């Protein structure tokens, strides 16, 4: 691709992503509580209101990915075109770093498994930074471990501190790029690119909604945390330099920061050197990301919230219900047959004449008659609700 077109496309993509982030943010805030105890339920509630799609959240999440990708490409394309001017390069780099900070703080907010574990590992890496790491992690968390004080701090950073910082840097960047921007806005191509970027974000949000994983569980031994796609390269460096946590935590980010700050001050490189440097960066990133994915090829896919809950309901049904109600729901399990228990047949239309979701939930929770035990102490409300939905699946369809 021609460098100028690449830079224009990346710039348009970044700007559109930023606008979408700013505009969808308040929509998400209106359905959110920054509380460890309530955040996940609030997110889930909004997701159900939107018919399980969570498209507002999807739009915000995809725009964040888009802003990181386009921002990185914009910096790369700018550096490839020649030694950047300080006045535009520093605000642009700063904006990119603030964007990474926004991702860092935003990912914890839904308090699902991905959020919890990703944050735990990231803070662990922050802690391994020499001298200031432990203190910095404590200030971010509001204490020695993630707890009641943490989400309010992340929320304040994510919705107030960092956005203001980003606005300030964007203002400096646009002021430095005034002439280029005016020329771009009078031409047709950049506007077309911006329109394409917006259409791409909407398409992505509608066909590939952002994942919501199960509720955060700090005691889950099965969960294997992995970073977002754009941090896999750093994760892989951590794996390759095992034993030296400071390489991943401090050395590589420090070198990256130094390169960003120093680039406009270094003697200008020839076009050939620039092309080689860009090619090396792109190849390195691709190789590390590819290697990270390849080494993880045997990891089981991470289920979403609804999927995991349905699987849990299947397991509970098999363990606790099938012995009486039978694995096909006919009420013909081995226990009910050998003890002559009166287990309901979930496949008979007669059963469904009186059953409704509320009564199913009540029967599972409190028991029914002499033979149906109460499960309210053993199972959570969430599990009982999912189990009622599992039983609904035995319901014969009309006309069958």
């Amino acid at each position: 691709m021609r460098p100028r077109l690449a830079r224009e496309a990346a710039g348009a993509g970044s700007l559109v992503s930023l606008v979408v982030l700013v505009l969808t943010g308040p929509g998400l805030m209106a359905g959110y509580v920054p509380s460890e105890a309530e955040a996940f339920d609030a997110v889930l509630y909004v997701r159900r209101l939107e018919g399980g799609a969570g498209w507002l959240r999807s739009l915000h999440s995809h725009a964040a990915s888009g802003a990181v990708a386009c921002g990185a490409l914009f910096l790369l394309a700018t550096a490839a075109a020649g030694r950047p001017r300080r006045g535009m390069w520093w605000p642009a780099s700063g904006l990119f770093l603030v964007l990474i900070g926004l991702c860092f703080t935003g990912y914890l907010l839904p308090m699902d498994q991905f959020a919890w574990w990703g944050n735990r590992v990231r803070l662990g890496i922050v802690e391994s930074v020499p001298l200031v790491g432990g203190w910095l992690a404590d200030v971010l968390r509001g204490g020695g471990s993630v707890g009641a004080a943490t989400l309010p701090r992340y929320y304040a950073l994510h919705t107030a501190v960092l956005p203001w910082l980003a606005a300030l840097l964007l203002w400096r960047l646009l002021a430095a790029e005034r002439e280029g921007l005016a020329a771009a806005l009078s031409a047709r191509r950049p506007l077309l690119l911006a329109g394409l970027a917006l259409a791409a974000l909407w398409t992505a949000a509608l066909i590939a909604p952002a994942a919501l994983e199960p509720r955060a569980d700090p005691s889950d031994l099965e969960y294997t945390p992995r970073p977002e796609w754009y941090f896999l390269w750093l994760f892989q460096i951590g794996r390759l330099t095992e034993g030296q946590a400071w390489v991943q935590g401090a050395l590589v980010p420090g070198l990256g920061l130094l390169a960003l700050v120093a680039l406009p001050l270094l003697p200008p490189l020839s076009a050939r050197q620039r092309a080689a440097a860009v090619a090396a960066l792109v190849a390195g990133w691709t190789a590390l990301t590819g290697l990270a994915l390849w080494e993880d090829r045997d990891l089981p896919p991470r289920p979403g919230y609804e999927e995991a809950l349905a699987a849990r309901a299947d397991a509970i049904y098999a363990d606790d219900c099938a012995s009486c109600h039978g694995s096909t729901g006919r009420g013909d399990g081995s226990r009910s047959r050998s003890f002559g228990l009166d287990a309901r047949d979930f496949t008979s239309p007669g059963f469904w004449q009186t059953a409704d979701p509320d009564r199913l939930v009540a029967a599972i929770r409190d028991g029914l008659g002499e033979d149906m035990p109460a499960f309210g102490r053993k199972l959570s409300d969430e599990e009982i609700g999912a189990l009622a939905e599992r039983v609904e699946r035995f319901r014969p369809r009309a006309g069958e």
Partner: protein
Amino acid sequence: MRRRELLRSWKPWLGVLAAGAGWPTLARWLHLEPAAADETWVDAGKLGDLPEDGWEPRRLAVRRRDHWRESVRSETVYLRRRGEAVEALSAVCPHGGCLVRQQADAFACPCHQGRFDSDGGRVEGPARRGLDPLPVRIGRGRVQVRHRLFRGGISDREPVAG
């Protein structure tokens, strides 16, 4: 820039304004509650249910006082029984905080390849100490653990709040 010019510029005044209005916020951010040592014992099941030798994972419901909130958090520990004595190890990796898993007779972390031997000692990987042992006591046939978390990434065992 001469001093007079500096005073005439608006930028230093903006800094003074920011410092004057912003310090209460900064103070709020830098205020961290001291780690309150949690002295409660958490039930970890019957002694009789633990197999002889070999580590068993157990989930504990750890009640904690967290700023303005009383909460219960689920945490995983590994228990090993030898006769009437029980040892406990925190499952939290002392590097990044992922939960270590049993691998053959030892422990491995799924995040950054940390490895620990069958007593929890550090073998290789980025962790700078072995797995953290937790105090255990036996009362009326039940195992009780005093659960705590330790700061990651360092070689000392520094307990943190919660």
